[in-house]
């Protein structure tokens, strides 16, 4: 079964500094990869996704992620963070398509805290 590991449970950074949130997944077969963001007391919103093509994927709010098949990684980056980026970030991978239903497997989450 697929598994996703987010290597940092908490990441504190100063405003306007760059940030990288790390994500590794278990499978070497073709996968679809996602990053979701959860602001306090809200549901999850899709930040970006990798389905195929270019390994560098750009998402909303200035975030981007790079798919590295050989290292089975999908790290999320932003060159300059803002206070409003304070949230929990989840990496997710498709486990497969059974009966037409795509099931996502989520990592444990990384809490990003931006300090002024």
């Amino acid at each position: 079964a697929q598994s996703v590991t987010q290597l940092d449970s908490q990441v504190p950074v100063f405003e306007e500094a760059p940030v990288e949130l790390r994500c590794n997944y278990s499978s070497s077969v073709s996968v679809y990869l996602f990053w979701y963001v959860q602001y306090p007391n809200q549901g999850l919103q899709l930040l970006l996704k990798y389905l195929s093509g270019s390994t560098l994927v750009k998402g909303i709010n200035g975030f981007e992620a790079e798919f590295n098949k050989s290292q089975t990684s999908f790290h999320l980056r932003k060159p300059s963070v803002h206070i409003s980026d304070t949230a929990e970030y989840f990496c997710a991978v498709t486990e497969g398509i059974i009966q037409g239903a795509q099931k996502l497997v989520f990592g444990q989450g990384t809490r990003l805290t931006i300090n002024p």
Partner: protein
Amino acid sequence: NAGVTQTPKFRILKIGQSMTLQCAQDMNHNYMYWYRQDPGMGLKLIYYSVGAGITDKGEVPNGYNVSRSTTEDFPLRLELAAPSQTSVYFCASSYGRLAKDGYGYTFGSGTRLTVV
């Protein structure tokens, strides 16, 4: 366009009580999912549905039941509440088709359940 609506937002249950968490979507999505979110554990799939009348177990189904009588609604039932079911529950839906939504999920805002 309301998206995915979950009710209630908060609930406290006593051990042994039962309740139904409601989930409704107005996007005509075929696929719907229930996840639970526990601190440091990410999201775990409880049940999913590929269409009206069709449901299946996810990773952590014990203690829960679901039904899907319409495309719009996917309620989650807790029959005998236990402290281990204290969690935040998220409902999600998707087209599940690459050309429609790139396999992205739309999440509800969650139900925070405490069992005492």
